[in-house]
């Protein structure tokens, strides 16, 4: 009988841990809005979650927040969305882990009659139309403009001349692709600026370190770095420190979360392009709530974007 005791205690343990973790019951009549972000181990999405939670509180709606363990895992994100559809949430706010790959999940939500609001990362419009999918709204930054702002600052800082490297996000992610495009457009007008290396660090900090370390090995005279996210930029900052070149390389990141602002203050980074993820989360939940009340909403909301340098650091708290 030892073994059945063992099984039962194991089951009890599981039940207990589940019960402890379980959030409030959802069946209190309030509509449930689910926010599915790419991952929760990135400050950007933590800020988005905070904004969404504030909006949910003031609007008196129930908010669920879910994410895959890894930012690149679009299949896991799709499973989460399928599960949320099964649990009959009233509306979905999604930051897609893949601009095309997420479309089958959106179509499933459409079929279940659940409205979908897309945040931060655009869904590929042609692929969405081809699949007969529909989204209620898109809320996000103008990433192309952000990349352009970074590119213009790079040209100004380097005086229109110098070797520049780029750390890309995951290819196929609309946000990173647009930032890259904007940056390249902005520096294209200055023939003195030479892009010597452009590689992905998969949005990850540790890869930002190693990839940029290798770039520095190959091109010791790199004068500027544009990283499509602050996490990658901060990884590169450490690689620059290890090479004893802190302050000698113009590093521009993207996202402007608190650690990157601190790096700008210390002069380890020159600038970072601020997005306002909390606003995205807030407007996303507000839009979904208004949809559920049957109100019309704006189909495309551009959240402001801003270059943060040492000069305006203090006047722009997140």
């Amino acid at each position, binding site marked *: 009988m030892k073994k059945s005791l063992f099984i039962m205690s194991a089951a009890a343990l599981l039940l207990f*841990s589940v019960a402890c*973790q*379980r959030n409030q019951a959802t069946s209190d009549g309030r509509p449930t809005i689910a926010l599915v972000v790419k991952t929760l181990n990135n400050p950007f999405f933590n800020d988005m979650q905070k904004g969404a939670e504030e909006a949910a509180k003031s609007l008196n709606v129930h908010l669920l*927040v879910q994410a895959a363990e890894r930012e690149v895992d679009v299949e896991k994100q799709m499973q989460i969305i*399928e599960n949320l559809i099964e*649990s009959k949430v009233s509306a979905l706010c999604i930051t897609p882990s893949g601009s095309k790959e997420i479309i*089958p999940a959106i179509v499933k939500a459409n079929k279940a009659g659940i409205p979908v609001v897309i945040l931060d990362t655009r869904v590929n419009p042609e*692929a969405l139309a081809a699949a007969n999918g529909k989204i209620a709204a898109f809320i996000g930054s103008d990433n192309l403009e952000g990349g352009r702002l970074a590119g213009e600052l790079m040209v100004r800082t380097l005086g229109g001349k110098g070797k520049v490297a780029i750390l890309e996000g995951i290819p196929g992610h609309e946000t990173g692709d647009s930032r890259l495009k904007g940056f390249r457009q902005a520096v294209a007008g200055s023939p003195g600026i030479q892009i010597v290396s452009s590689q992905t660090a998969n949005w990850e900090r540790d890869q930002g370190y190693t990839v940029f370390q290798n770039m520095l090995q190959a091109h010791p005279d790199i004068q500027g770095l544009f990283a499509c996210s602050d996490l990658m930029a901060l990884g590169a900052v450490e690689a620059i420190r290890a090479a004893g070149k802190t302050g000698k390389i113009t590093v521009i990141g993207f996202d402007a979360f608190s650690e990157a602002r601190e790096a700008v203050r210390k002069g380890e980074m020159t600038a970072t392009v601020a997005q306002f993820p909390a606003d995205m989360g807030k407007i996303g939940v507000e839009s979904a709530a208004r949809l559920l009340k049957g109100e019309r909403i704006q189909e495309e909301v551009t959240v402001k974007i801003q270059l943060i340098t040492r000069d305006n650091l203090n006047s722009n708290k997140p």
Partner: protein
Amino acid sequence: MTLKAYVALHGRQFGTLFGLIVLCAVMWILTPHFLTVSNLLNVAEQTAIIAIIAAGMTFVIITAGIDLSVGSVLAFSGVVLASLLQKGVPLVPALAIGIGVGFFTGVLNGLLITIGRLPPFIATLGMMSVARGAALLYTGGRPISGFSDSFRYLATGKPLGIPMPVLAMLAIFFMAYFLLTKTKLGRYTYAIGGNEEATILSGVNVRLYKTLIYGICGGLAGLAATILTARLNSAQPIAGMNYELDAIAATVIGGTSLMGGEGHVFGTLIGALIIGVLRNGLTLLNISSFAQQIIIGLVIIVAVLLDMALKKSRR
């Protein structure tokens, strides 16, 4: 055979099955959304990809081997298949080549292990990196997306109301069961894991069978790639990261011993379903992804502890 004797002999599978039933009961009590036909089909569909990979992994692990390359092989097979489809290659040859890429990568693993005498861990660790790099190089890091409806039917089709991935999963497990229990290949699989030296001495061409087993494992990763590509309507070179760990977990939860010589494919299916039900149920309950990882880890540990306790009590 009396029922009691049968249970005594096959106690381990009953243990995991019992675990799955308990888990389902717990989820049923905690959330009204769990025990619905559409959600159960949903779970089965979500489990299919890992389960199919895990079926191949079961063969490998029974021979006391391991295959760490399956996630990368899945990505490589997927992007090759996707590029063929986009070049207008008809469905059947494209599928055959896509799955064939998986099979040949697996055979390569097998040759490295049998002819090259590398430990399976090392050979497949190397292949994990090679296949991932090949997938990235082949695509320039970009996903390949957009396929015909006839291809997508492999994931979106629902003959008789049952999703295609689930049908594929069931077909694979019945075939694997047949191979393992009714054929020479199956008996040799157990024999190699039980005592490889003795198997060689009794005149079995162990090199051939081992290579074939790794080929099967790779081929099943290729098949999983087809389903994943059809499901997402896109083949990503970064797909399938950590899938090898999920497949190994499903196999081990299902009662197959990493020491080799024993194991059962239906145990693996139940193991994969346990992971699938957990992930599904924990999302329905809105438990954070961080806590989910802790719970899944604990379940793996408890399952193996339980398995060891059952084994002891039978002796």
